[in-house]
């Protein structure tokens, strides 16, 4: 009987991987891109650590951390970010789910609406809102209003993340499969859809967090002392603490992104959202 020889395998049981040739220009452009990002970062870091002409230390960092304004503004922005994320997700997850499930013809409309915050500049948004504040001036005395405004600002990122997440799974078939075995709508959303778009939700949440932590225009025009307003103030008054603050801000954002990366990797190992739709 004829046999077909299997490809040679390594001790680990896998076929040996071909060593890919990487050209000089690939390395060149890669290094150039890395330098483009790293040089300013390194310069800022070095500047933030300089304490005298030849001395280095964490003096400016200590000064920033000791400033009660830093803590107040940071915690205020963080609270706003969390509120924005919660409001955004509570509003957008069922909406995007429903559009995917029942109103797919509305997706182009949603695409256009979701990018409106890119088209309308924050200054114009505040001017528009001033009409609302004229009628209801008490809104301005409540810092909570910022979270609702930030939901609009973060809409493109929240919507895009959720839309991409729901495109990656077959929402309709999964929903119908859950319903066929007796799951009502809200349990389907909770137990079947949400766990499978967790990475997308996290992506949207961290992008929202980054936007809220860095948003300056609206908060300064509405006279709220957010973290971005504090950064701007420090930048205008003290150069080295401003550099230290920039590094702190960068580290926090980077930490959030790494958290997302690690979470999505762990999720990837547990399961893959590959539900294949088969064309008829």
């Amino acid at each position, binding site marked *: 009987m004829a046999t077909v020889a299997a490809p040679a395998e390594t001790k680990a049981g896998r076929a040996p991987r071909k060593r890919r040739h990487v050209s000089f220009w690939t390395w060149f452009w890669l290094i150039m891109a890395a330098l483009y990002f790293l040089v300013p970062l390194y310069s800022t870091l070095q500047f933030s650590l300089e304490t005298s002409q030849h001395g280095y230390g964490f003096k400016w960092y200590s000064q920033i951390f000791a400033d009660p304004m830093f803590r107040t503004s940071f915690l205020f922005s963080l609270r706003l970010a969390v509120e924005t994320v919660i409001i955004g997700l509570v509003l957008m997850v069922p909406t995007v789910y429903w559009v995917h499930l029942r109103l797919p013809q509305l997706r182009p409309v949603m695409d256009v609406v979701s990018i409106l915050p890119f088209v309308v500049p924050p200054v114009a948004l505040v001017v528009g809102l001033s009409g609302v504040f004229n009628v209801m001036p008490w809104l301005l005395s409540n810092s909570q209003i910022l979270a609702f405004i930030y939901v609009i600002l973060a809409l493109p990122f929240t919507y895009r993340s959720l839309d991409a997440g729901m495109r990656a799974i077959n929402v309709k078939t999964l929903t*119908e499969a859950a319903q066929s075995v007796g799951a009502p709508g809200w349990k389907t959303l909770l137990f079947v859809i949400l766990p*499978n778009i967790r990475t997308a939700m996290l992506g949207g949440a961290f992008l929202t967090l980054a936007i809220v932590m860095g948003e300056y225009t609206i908060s300064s025009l509405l006279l709220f002392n957010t973290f971005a307003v504090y950064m701007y103030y420090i930048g205008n008054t003290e150069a080295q603490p401003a550099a230290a603050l920039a590094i702190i801000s960068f580290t926090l954002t980077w930490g959030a992104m790494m958290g997302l990366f690690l979470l999505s990797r762990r999720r990837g190992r547990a399961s893959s959202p590959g539900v294949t739709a088969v064309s008829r």
Partner: protein
Amino acid sequence: MARLDLRGIHKEFGEVTALAELSLEVESGELVSLLGPSGCGKTTALRIVAGFEQPTRGELLVDGSDVTPVPASKRNMGMVFQAYSLFPNMTARQNVEFGLRMRKVARDKCRARAGELLELVGLATRADNYPHELSGGQQQRVALARALAIEPAILLLDEPLSALDAKVRVDLRQQIRHVQQRLGITTLYVTHDQEEALSISDRIAVMSDGKLEQVGAPAEIYRSPRSEFVANFVGLMNGFDGRVQAPDLVAVGASERPIGVVEGHGRATGDRVLVLIRPESVDLKELADGATPSDGAFEGKVAMHTFLGSVTRVNLSSDLGDLVADVPSLRALTMPPGTRVAVRVDPVGVRLLPR
């Protein structure tokens, strides 16, 4: 086990009529296949039974109770989908347990039932695997176990094998039939594959343009199609114009070649008819040089062979016109293209339809 009754189900999508007054009864424990080409309305009918679509009018009865307004989640019907539909965040066992958990069944009972069903579909050893760790066939078997876990009144299968390769399809369809018969569960099976429908069903409902063309046992559908559409969709047919000459004789084609037919076809002498002949009813015999066919046979010439394994499909030109015959492959070797043959048609394989 339950009896399913579709009464005058009509469905319109805008101006398109997907189903036109469809009526069908499925007896307890019976497996009925809805068979038809793409767009004939078979999946729409199944989705209406499942509760994912509402009919424009008509009634759906389960054991005599009208379930038309009942939402899908409360119909107690298990469904296996064409697309792989396992929940990606759950293992095979968790997928099977899901419906029971929705019904608040105790955890240990859920686990035991899921174990039994995974055993039944031959996947007990893969219970803790996630869907992406299973092959397509295994995923559909888990989907079948998940649909059965809730002990549904009706099992609905929407082309569950169409995404699988040929070998797995044959194995899995036998397994589905085995499980269905063992549990005696009333089943509605949608497919566009006539071989699948013929092999798995108690009865087949052939559909075209939202209407039922014919309902019957697989052998009846195959042997006695009631329309040209059914004849051509289920298996292969040779079709010719003809005229009834006598109760047991029909004149076929432009040459009015007489062919024997079984009496009792219900057509009167002189009627114009469509004569349908199954390829396996055409017998070929090689003709020696100068010989002529005898005893009601007529002459043909082999044009082409298509090897299908145990049989070879032979295309002929003959007095009737172009004709297709299925011949055992070993015999077909003796009549290569160009061979003169005597063609004889078995009257049992001839079917007459009104013109």
